[in-house]
């Protein structure tokens, strides 16, 4: 039986089980004797084992079997010793790593080192902190590599009656021989994707057969993703002087080159790094699956049926030139389409809890490491968000939570993650009840770092001062902690939110905790845009990027340091020209200058356009090569008349012009 069709399902389900395992272990740590939790853990491991064995993923099956056995033992005693928690977690991490391998079509990594290890019986406090730290920082595959390094240590087989006072080899080797660990890390590097060009000698006899040998050699070196000519073409005897192949491999290019050059007839091998590997590698690859409830599917079918009926009614009305009937049916059709649109969006929504699952585990590891007592509260985890948005949020969310523990909370406190719908947006907030942030201190710091002059800093509102932490390289803690120098990651968080067409706000005051609020569109396939014209071309700006629009009397625009500025209440706002940013000829403004107020690097700026053409909802079409390489283009949309309108991101356009370089 061909199992490959079940592979995606296996992967997504097993990830869910792993998520559950992580959460259950953390729960268990708080109540070691909770029977139900132990039973639940056992069942999760058991499910993974069954699925993996069916799929023929031997190591995944073996490891989950091992964990299942261990948990079964705990079911008998009714208790999980605190000292085995780290071991369990390391096992879960290793399972996760195995899934990564399977997902990227690599052989499953070795689990031997883990299998021969024993859980620590009585680790000293300090050492266990160290374990947590390592688990946190090093992906499981490197843990394994390091542990193999430590095999010269005597390895005690699993035996409950023989306590193992020593720290597990993993920890010891990592601390004492970090150099070796470093070397190991390199040898197990993530696979790279690149293009290989292989040239055969002129007039090579049976070149197609030669080409097949080249492809076979490439297949031995890694995953041959595609090639030109491909295997089928070569079998058909295609001419073959040059072969281009896309290869995903962890082998060094040198080795591959050597092997290829040994093939008779191969005269030249060249490598081209893949700029597109972000799209084609890792977890994002291939056909994504999503589970849709059957009742939702039924509604699709019903709506489609109604639309079909509607089509006939439209035909009839048109043929009979019955305008009343036509108008009536048209409005019915548009209602049905709205309905369908709504339902389709529903189908793409996934609850936030899909990505919050690993947060309890992260908080637990972080609290142990920083010696703080941190409680995580989750509310609104059931709120649905478009899956694309959800995936892009995973890392920013982890970052905000880490920041809250690292910088917000001092000794003990609560980190609250909440989500709720706000019209067609979702608000996700990460709040802590820690020491809060001081706008004054941030202003001072901006001046100290030469990011702005004292008078510029003084003119920042408190809100804008807080946003300074989102500037690249800005940090508010004197000593940058190893988990998260605040500011190191906030620019990334801000960028991720912006890329999704969302916005980030920070609310904080000394002694009052901090709240990081992300407002995100429910769906990014359909967005609201502002249409403007610029040197005669229509362009779209996502409405999420527009604070407001202004029609400014041209005489209100002044020059300040050779830059155009205008007053907005108390604030002095710089004015840039969209035409100039796009390299288009400027159209001289008449009495009124049309301005889009937007934000670039946390600062309010005005963007001059020729005219406003209105707001609307637009279906965003993704851009293909090479349009996707142009900076500042987010997509395109097609107007009713067929006109293609590109969606521009003012921030990226202006940043790319380096308008902010010297101020």
């Amino acid at each position, binding site marked *: 039986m061909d199992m490959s069709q079940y592979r995606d399902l296996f992967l997504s389900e097993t990830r869910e089980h792993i998520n559950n395992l992580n959460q259950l272990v953390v729960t268990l740590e708080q109540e070691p004797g909770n029977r139900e939790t132990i039973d639940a853990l056992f069942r999760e491991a058991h499910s993974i084992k069954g699925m993996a064995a069916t799929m023929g993923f031997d190591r995944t099956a073996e490891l989950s079997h091992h964990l299942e056995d261990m948990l079964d033992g705990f079911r008998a005693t009714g208790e999980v010793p605190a000292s085995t928690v780290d071991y369990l977690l390391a096992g879960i991490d290793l399972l996760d790593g195995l899934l990564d391998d399977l997902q990227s079509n690599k052989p499953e990594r070795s689990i031997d080192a883990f299998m021969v290890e024993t859980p620590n019986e009585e680790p000293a406090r300090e050492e266990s902190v160290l374990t947590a730290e390592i688990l946190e920082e090093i992906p499981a595959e490197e843990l394994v590599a390091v542990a193999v390094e430590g095999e010269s240590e005597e390895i005690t087989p699993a035996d409950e009656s023989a306590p193992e006072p020593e720290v597990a080899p993993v920890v010891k080797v990592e601390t004492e021989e970090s150099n070796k660990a470093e070397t190991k890390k390199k040898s197990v590097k993530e696979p790279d994707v690149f293009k290989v060009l292989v040239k055969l000698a002129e007039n090579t*006899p*049976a*070149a*197609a*057969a030669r080409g*097949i*040998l080249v492809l076979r050699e490439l297949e031995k070196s890694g995953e041959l993703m595609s090639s030109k000519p491909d295997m089928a073409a*070569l*079998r058909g*005897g295609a001419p073959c002087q040059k072969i281009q192949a896309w290869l995903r491999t962890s082998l060094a290019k040198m080795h591959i080159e050597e092997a290829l050059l*040994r*093939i*008779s007839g191969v005269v030249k091998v060249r490598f081209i790094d893949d700029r597109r590997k972000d799209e084609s590698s890792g977890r994002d690859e291939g056909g994504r699956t999503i589970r849709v409830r059957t009742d939702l599917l039924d509604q699709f079918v019903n709506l489609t049926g109604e639309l079909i009926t509607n089509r006939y009614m439209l035909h009839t009305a048109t043929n009979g030139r019955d305008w009343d009937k036509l108008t009536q049916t048209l409005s019915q059709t548009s209602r049905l389409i709205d309905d369908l649109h709504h339902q389709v969006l529903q189908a793409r929504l996934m609850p936030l809890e899909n990505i919050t699952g690993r947060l309890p585990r992260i908080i637990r590891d972080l609290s142990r490491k920083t010696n703080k007592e941190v409680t995580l509260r989750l509310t609104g985890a059931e709120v649905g968000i478009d899956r694309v948005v959800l995936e892009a949020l995973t890392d920013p969310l982890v970052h905000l939570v880490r920041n809250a523990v690292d910088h917000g909370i001092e000794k003990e406190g609560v980190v609250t993650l909440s989500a709720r719908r706000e019209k067609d947006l979702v608000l996700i907030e990460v709040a802590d009840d820690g020491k809060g942030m001081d706008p004054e201190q941030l202003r001072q710091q901006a001046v100290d770092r030469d990011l702005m002059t004292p008078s510029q800093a003084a003119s920042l509102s408190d809100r804008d001062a807080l946003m300074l932490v989102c500037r690249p390289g800005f940090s508010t803690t004197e000593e940058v902690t190893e988990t998260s120098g605040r500011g190191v990651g906030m620019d990334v968080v801000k960028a991720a939110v912006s890329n999704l067409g969302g916005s980030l706000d920070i609310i904080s005051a000394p002694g009052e905790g901090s709240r990081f609020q992300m407002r995100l569109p429910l769906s990014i396939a359909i967005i609201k845009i502002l249409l403007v014209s610029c040197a005669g071309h229509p362009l779209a700006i996502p409405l999420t990027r527009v604070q407001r629009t202004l029609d400014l009397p041209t005489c209100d625009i002044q020059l300040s340091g050779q830059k155009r500025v205008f007053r907005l209440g108390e604030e002095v706002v710089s004015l840039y020209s969209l035409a100039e940013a796009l390299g288009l000829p400027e159209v001289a403004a008449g009495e009124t200058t049309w301005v889009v107020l937007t934000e670039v690097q946390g600062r309010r700026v005005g963007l001059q356009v020729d005219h406003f053409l209105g707001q609307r909802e637009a279906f965003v079409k993704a851009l293909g090569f090479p349009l996707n390489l142009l900076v500042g283009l987010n997509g395109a949309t097609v107007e009713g008349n067929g006109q293609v309108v590109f969606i521009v991101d003012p921030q990226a356009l202006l940043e790319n012009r380096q308008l902010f370089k010297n101020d």
Partner: protein
Amino acid sequence: MALRVMVVDDALFMRSMLKDIFVRAGYEVVAEAENGEIALELYQEIKPDLVTMDIVMPKKSGIEALQEIMASDPDACVVMVSALGQDSLVLEAVESGAKDFIVKPFKENNVLEIVRRITGQA
């Protein structure tokens, strides 16, 4: 241990030439066959490390012999020996599992390079 080679070709001339090349390189030529049928029998009996196989031979062609050898021993190491202009036959052979091919007329070095590559010997 020296590499054990079987040379299959209906022409004694070719067999001798290949044999000399292998002997000079320090390999042991453990068998010779003049058609596919004999080659198949000898292969089952001797299990050589490497076979060089002519394509056009009486009784059983090199490709048929190759296919049967591969069916009985998927790890078999067979190198085809073809003449110029037999591209489609070479293709068929490679698809049937031949590890590489040598095109006549060949040079000694050429043959040895190919053998070293596929046997993984330096």
